[in-house]
């Protein structure tokens, strides 16, 4: 995320864009998934999947339950190692990678079944997102003095900005285990944002929210994308959301790629309608 000069630039860019949505164009490829196949024993979760994510876009992944969407994200951030295929990220080619390495190259994510640190407060959860950016060594930390204290304050300030941004000031010190579901999702987003990622993977960020909250969440996602230029890959079942905010959509079904294209293309694809949408939206 931004240092001061960037923020200023981003803010001016965040002037409301008037509807109808202008077709956004992206050229640079951030991540490319090539011929990925992932198996668990007999279960084939993904079969020969290829697609790409351009820098700066909002990319949606949709598909029926069990289609392999979450598995796809797990492959991207290194939690699962695919049996076949490879991933090119920021121009670098890789096959297997540990999740913490993925994190240090700028990939952050949220989880379908909330994976917050239940015993910690909201603020501490968000601060964990800053771990990679913090430098002071263990002795300074033990003394809590000088550079360490300054560092703690700086990062705290950063996290406070995110807290303001996501409007969760009131629950700063509450242990997250006690928060209602929707707020937990928001805290999870905050934690991911604190990592200042280049690529943000969101797994059903709006599940279990009502319309109003979804609106808020969409707003946040769009703002992150606009203001900080973060590339976003998003899994979501609410077609309204997907169609409204994503630039391109990839559709998975039973581990295979069914379609790939702009929301409008996907919406009118008969295979997609049959397999997933049911009634057309």
């Amino acid at each position: 995320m931004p240092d001061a000069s960037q923020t200023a630039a981003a803010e001016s860019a965040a002037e409301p864009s008037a509807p109808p949505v202008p077709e956004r164009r992206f050229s640079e490829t951030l991540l490319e998934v090539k011929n990925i196949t992932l198996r668990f024993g007999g279960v084939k979760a993904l079969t020969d999947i290829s697609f790409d994510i351009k820098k700066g876009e909002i990319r949606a992944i949709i598909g029926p339950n069990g289609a392999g969407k979450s598995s796809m994200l797990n492959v991207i951030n290194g939690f699962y190692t695919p049996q076949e295929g490879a991933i090119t990220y920021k121009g670098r080619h890789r096959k297997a990678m540990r999740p913490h390495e993925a994190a240090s190259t700028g990939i952050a994510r949220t989880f379908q079944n909330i994976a917050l640190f239940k015993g910690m407060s909201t603020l501490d959860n968000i601060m964990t997102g800053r771990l990679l950016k913090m430098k002071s060594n263990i002795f300074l930390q033990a003394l809590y003095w000088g550079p360490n204290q300054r560092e703690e304050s700086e990062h705290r300030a950063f996290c406070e900005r995110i807290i303001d941004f996501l409007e969760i000031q009131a629950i700063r010190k509450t242990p997250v285990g006690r928060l209602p579901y929707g707020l937990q999702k928001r805290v999870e987003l905050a934690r991911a944002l604190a990592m200042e990622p280049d690529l943000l993977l969101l797994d059903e960020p709006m599940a279990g929210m009502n319309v109003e909250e979804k609106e808020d969440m969409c707003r946040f996602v769009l703002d992150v994308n606009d203001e900080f230029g973060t590339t976003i890959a998003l899994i979501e079942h609410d077609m309204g959301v997907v169609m409204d905010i994503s630039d391109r959509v990839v559709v998975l079904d039973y581990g295979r790629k069914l379609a790939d294209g702009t929301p409008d293309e996907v919406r009118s694809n008969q295979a997609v309608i049959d397999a997933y949408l049911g009634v057309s939206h």
Partner: protein
Amino acid sequence: MSQPNLAAESAPRDATATERPLLSVNNIEVIYDHVILVLKGVSLTVPKGGIVALLGANGAGKTTTLKAISNLLRAERGEVTKGSIELEGEAVDNMTPNDLVKRGVIQVMEGRHCFEHLTVEENLLTGAYTRGGDRAGIQRDLEMVYDYFPRLRERRSSQAGYTSGGEQQMTAIGRALMSRPKVVLLDEPSMGLAPQLVEQIFEIVKRINEQEGVTILLAEQNTNVALRYAKYGYILENGRVVMDGPADKLRENEDVKEFYLGLSATGRKSYRDVKHYKRRKRWLS
């Protein structure tokens, strides 16, 4: 409560005016951990054979209300400190969840809660625990669940811990159906399900409601669908019921339209157009 009751003549009772409601919750207060007051006087009634929706924002107390009914609160160090809950006129305070299931009240918990190490089929079978040795009946119902959710049949022998989110949700609902319930307390059944499946599940809910006479109390975020299938709705805010009424009336209400259905006067707005300055209006009480 300052908000006028929408249903002028207190709706749920008029259909079944003579009959006692199946379930009635009278002005309950719930406290967690002896200090956190979450429900501040919630009342609702569920008529026999009805589908009642419980709506409200995150943290409004929907889950808490359902758990209070099914007596699962104690396991979370919560307790009902005021008010009463009655099932067919009988207080349920001292019943264990097991008694309640035997009497036909079962809850589908939010966040799935499948038994990870059991296979999908074993998960379903645990739902039939209270039915004892009725093998043939259980087998029949198992088939019924598999017919409702064909995906589960495919995955029947995988450990539930390894199934996808949606599959787990189906397992959880199927598991509850296996107990042959009279009332199902459904906590966010649509969460994480593909749109097609959401419709399907609500169709199934409607079907069991109509065909088998199962009463449904439904906590939902997906107001749109919920109000389409429910006959009556309650809206919870901050641990209080702020509005209730027949589903169709609620759907017409301007506030509900704006805040729960995402419809403004001009129709559905794109999520792209929502502005920062738009702030929710809170019902004060």
